[in-house]
C-alpha cells in the first residue's frame, strides 16, 4: 500500500497530538495550594449544630467552632481537660459550675466572644425540642456573672452540674446574635474556630484560615472538604497527590500505604466500640442467661484477628479513651462449657427448642462486618444456636437498627458501632442501657437504671469513677444487654508533607497548628 504525503501529514499530526496530551495534564493538580481532605461522609443541609447528630458534620464543625474546654482523649489519660474558650473552671456547689472565659476572642463575623454567647448557646441547645439536645445531660440555666464569667446552674432540673464537666468539651459555642436569628444559623456556620466557612459547591466545602483565631492564624490557608464515598477512590487520590488527607481506611489499605514514601499513616484508638446488641424485650433474649450464653460462645480474639489493625481488644462497654473505662474482670469470656450450662439452665439444652435467631449486620460502612459476622454465626451455630445472618447495605441496615414506635426492632442480634465526642460515658451508657431510652436493645432492668442514676448523681469525679468502674460497668457486663466485641481504631493516611495534625477519637481533626510544605 502506498503512502501519500497527505496521509503522512495526517498520521504525524495525530501522533504528535497524542504524545502532547500528558502536557495538558501536568502536575499542576498536585502543586501547593489548599489542603484537600477526602472525607468519607458529608454535612447536612443545615449548619445549625443543634439540628443533627451525624458524625461527619461533627467532624466538619471541629474546624469551625470552639468549645469551652478541650479533651484530647488519649488512652493514657482519658480524663484530661484542657482550656479552650474557658481558662478556668470549678465546682461551686452540687448544681453549679463556674467557667472563666478567655478574653480577646472573636467570632468569624468579627463580633467579640462574651458570656452572653455561652448563655445563649447552652440554653438554646439544651432545650429538649432541639434534635441534638440528646448530647446535653439536661436543660441548664446560665448565669452571667460578668462579661467573661458564667455559671452553669442545674438546680431547677434536678441533676448535678458535674454532668457538664466533660461534655463542655464537645458542645460547640455559637454566637448569641445567630441564635436570635435561626435562619442565619442554618445558612452558614459562624464560630470561633481556626477556620471559617467560605462556600459549598456541589460535593466540596471550602474553609479558609481565620486570621483572628485566638491561638494564631493557622499556617494552612485553605482547607477543602471533598466528599468521596468510595474508599478506593480516596486512597488513589492520596497516591496521585490530589488529596492530602483522608480517613477511614480499610486495614489492607492501611498496611499497603505504610510502605509509600510519599505518605504517612496514622492509627489511633477511637471512642467507638463495636457492639452486638440483643433485642432484650422479646424471646429468646429477654432471658439474660441466653444472652450470656451467646457471649460465652464468641471467641473475641478470633474476631480481632479478622479486624486486624482496625480493632483493639477491650473488656468493657466503653472505649479506653472514655472516662470510667476499666478492664472489667467479670467480662464474659469465651467459655463453651459455661455457654452450654446456661442454655441447659434456661431450658434449651444444646440450643434445642430455640426459635430461629436473626443476626443483622451492615456491609460497606464498618470494616470487616461481613467477615466477622460469618465467623460469629459459625461460632454460635457450633454451640447449637440456630442463627441466620442477614447482611444489609447501610441504608437498609440503619432502618432496622433502632426500635420502632411499638418498642420492637427486627431481628434478634444487631451489629452497630457507637461513637461519641468527649470522655463523658453517659453519652454511650444512657442512650443504650437506660430503660427510658435503650434505643437499640430495649433493655428494661431496674438494677441497671439504678446504677446509672447513681453514677450520674455522684458529686465528685472521683466518686463517679469509682461507681462506674466497680458497679455500673461490671453490672452491665453481667446482664449483657449487648456485648462489646472490640474498640475501633481509626486508620488514616496523609501526605508526608503534612505535619502537626491532631486527631480526636470521635472524628474531628485539629489543623490549627498543621503545616503543608
Amino acid at each position: 500500500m502506498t503512502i501519500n504525503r497527505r496521509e503522512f501529514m495526517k498520521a504525524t499530526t495525530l501522533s504528535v497530538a497524542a504524545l502532547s496530551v500528558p502536557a495538558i495534564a501536568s502536575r499542576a493538580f498536585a502543586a501547593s495550594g489548599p489542603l484537600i481532605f477526602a472525607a468519607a461522609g458529608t454535612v447536612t443541609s443545615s449548619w445549625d449544630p443543634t439540628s443533627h447528630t451525624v458524625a461527619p458534620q461533627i467532624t466538619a464543625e471541629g474546624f469551625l467552632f470552639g468549645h469551652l474546654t478541650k479533651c484530647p482523649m488519649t488512652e493514657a489519660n482519658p480524663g484530661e481537660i484542657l482550656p479552650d474558650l474557658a481558662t478556668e473552671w470549678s465546682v461551686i456547689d452540687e448544681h453549679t459550675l463556674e467557667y472563666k472565659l478567655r478574653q480577646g476572642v472573636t467570632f468569624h463575623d468579627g463580633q467579640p466572644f462574651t458570656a452572653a454567647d455561652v448563655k445563649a448557646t447552652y440554653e438554646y441547645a439544651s432545650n429538649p425540642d432541639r434534635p441534638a439536645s440528646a448530647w446535653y445531660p439536661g436543660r441548664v440555666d446560665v448565669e452571667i456573672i460578668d462579661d467573661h464569667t458564667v455559671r452553669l446552674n442545674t438546680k431547677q432540673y434536678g441533676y448535678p452540674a458535674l454532668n457538664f464537666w466533660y461534655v463542655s468539651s464537645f458542645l460547640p459555642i455559637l454566637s448569641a446574635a445567630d441564635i436570635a436569628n435561626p435562619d442565619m444559623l442554618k445558612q452558614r456556620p459562624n464560630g470561633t474556630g481556626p477556620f471559617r466557612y467560605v462556600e459549598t459547591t456541589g460535593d466540596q466545602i471550602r474553609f479558609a484560615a481565620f486570621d483572628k483565631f485566638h491561638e494564631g492564624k493557622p499556617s494552612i490557608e485553605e482547607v477543602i472538604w471533598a466528599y468521596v464515598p468510595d474508599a478506593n477512590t480516596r486512597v488513589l487520590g492520596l497516591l496521585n497527590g490530589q488529596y492530602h488527607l483522608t480517613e477511614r481506611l480499610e486495614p489492607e489499605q492501611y498496611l499497603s500505604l505504610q510502605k509509600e514514601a510519599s505518605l504517612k499513616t496514622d492509627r489511633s484508638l477511637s471512642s467507638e466500640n463495636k457492639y452486638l446488641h440483643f433485642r432484650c424485650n422479646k424471646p429468646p433474649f429477654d432471658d439474660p442467661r441466653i444472652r450470656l450464653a451467646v457471649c460465652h460462645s464468641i471467641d473475641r480474639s478470633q474476631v480481632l484477628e479478622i479486624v486486624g489493625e482496625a480493632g483493639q481488644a477491650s473488656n468493657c462497654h466503653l472505649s479506653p479513651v472514655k472516662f470510667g473505662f476499666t478492664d472489667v474482670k467479670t467480662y464474659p469470656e469465651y467459655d463453651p462449657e459455661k455457654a452450654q450450662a446456661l442454655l441447659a439452665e434456661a431450658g434449651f439444652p444444646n440450643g434445642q427448642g430455640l426459635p430461629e435467631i436473626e443476626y443483622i449486620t451492615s456491609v460497606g460502612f464498618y470494616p470487616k462486618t461481613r467477615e466477622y459476622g460469618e465467623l460469629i454465626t459459625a461460632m454460635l451455630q457450633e454451640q447449637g444456636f440456630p442463627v441466620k445472618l442477614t447482611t444489609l447495605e447501610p441504608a437498609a441496615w440503619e432502618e432496622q437498627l433502632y426500635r420502632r414506635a411499638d418498642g420492637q426492632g427486627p431481628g434478634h442480634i444487631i451489629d452497630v458501632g457507637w461513637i461519641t465526642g468527649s470522655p463523658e460515658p453517659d453519652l454511650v451508657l444512657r442512650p443504650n442501657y437506660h430503660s427510658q431510652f435503650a434505643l437499640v436493645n430495649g433493655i428494661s432492668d431496674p438494677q441497671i437504671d439504678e446504677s446509672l442514676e447513681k453514677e450520674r448523681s455522684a458529686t465528685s469525679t472521683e466518686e463517679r469513677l469509682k461507681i462506674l468502674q466497680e458497679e455500673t460497668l461490671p453490672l452491665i457486663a453481667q446482664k449483657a444487654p449487648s456485648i462489646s466485641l472490640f474498640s475501633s481504631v481509626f486508620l488514616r493516611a496523609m501526605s508526608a508533607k503534612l505535619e502537626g495534625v491532631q486527631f480526636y477519637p470521635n472524628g474531628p481533626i485539629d489543623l490549627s497548628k498543621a503545616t503543608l510544605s
Partner: protein
Amino acid sequence: MRASASPALVFLSPDKIKMAFALEFFLRRISQGVLIVLAVAFVIFTLLRIAPGDPTRIILGPMATPSAMEETAQRLGLRDPIPVQFLRYLGDIAKGDFGNSFIRGKQGGTTGGSQDAGSAAPVERAAVIELIARALPYTLLLAACGFLLACLVSIPLGILAGVRNRGWPQKTALYLSSFFVSLPNVWVGIVLIYLLSARTGWLPAIGYQHIGYVIIPAIVVAVELAPVMIRSISVAVAGNVQEPFYEIGQVRGLSARAMLFRHVLRNAAVPLLNSFGAQMIGMLLGGLFVVEYIFSFPGIGLLTINAVFQRDFPVIQTVAIFASTVLVFINIAVDFASTTIDRRLKF
C-alpha cells in the same frame, strides 16, 4: 410500497407519501415510547417504596423519634398507597415539577441527618431538575469522549478485520475484543488510575478540574464499548464483502476503496445502527454510572449512585425516567434513520 396502501395514497405525490409515512411512524412509535417510559417509571417507583431502607430515617438521622419520622413521612407523602403516590407524581411531572431531593439541600449538603423540622421542608431542598442539569454536561462530555475513543479504535480495526477475513487484522480484532470484554470496568478504572496517575503522575484522575480529567474515565468507557463495536463492524463488513456484488463491482472498474466506502459500509450501516441503538447506548449508560462513581466524576452516574445509597427517591425516579426516555428516543431515531438508509425497511 406496502400492498395494503390505501387507495387515497395513489393520488398523492411521492413527497407527500414520504411525509405521511414519517408522520405515521413517529406517532406510532412515540405513543409506544410513552407507554414504555410510563411502565419503567411505575416499576422503579414501586420498587423504591417496597425495598427496605426508609428515606425518613436517613433524612432525620440516628436519634430521630418515631413521631418525628411519622410526621416527615406524612409530609413527603410516603404513607399513601403506592398507586395514589404514583398518580400524584405523574400529575406533578405533567406540570414540569420533578420534585425536590429528599437529601440534597440548596446549599449543596449531601446527606440527611438534619432533624430540624424547618430545614427538612421541601422548599429548602434542591430541585431535582437543577441537580440533573448541573451534572448532565459532565456525563455528556464523558460519554462523547468515551464513544469517540471507542470509534477511533473499533472502526479501523473492525473494517480491516471484516475485509481481510484471515490474517493478523482478524486475529487482533478477535483477541482484543475477547480481552477487553473480559475486563470488569471497575478493575480497569482502578488499575488505570493507579498506573497512569498515582504511580507516574502523567494524568489527573479523580473528580473534575479541567478537560484532562476526562481522559482516563473515557478510556475505561471505551474499553467497555470497543469489543461490541469491533465485533459488530467486522461481522457486518465481512458479511457484505462476501456478497457477490463486492467482487463484481471491482471487476466492473470500481476500486476496492470505492466499493468499501460507497457500498459495503452503507449496507453495513443498518445493522450497525441497530446495534448502536439497542445495545451500546444501554451499555454506555450502565458503564457510565460505575465509571463516574470510581472516578468521583461529577455527572449523572455519581448523582444517581449517591441517591441510591441515600434513598433519595425523587432523584432516582427522575433519572430513571430520563434514561428510559433517552433510550426510547434513540431507538426511534435509529429505526427512522435505518428506513432512510435502506428503503426496503419499514419500521
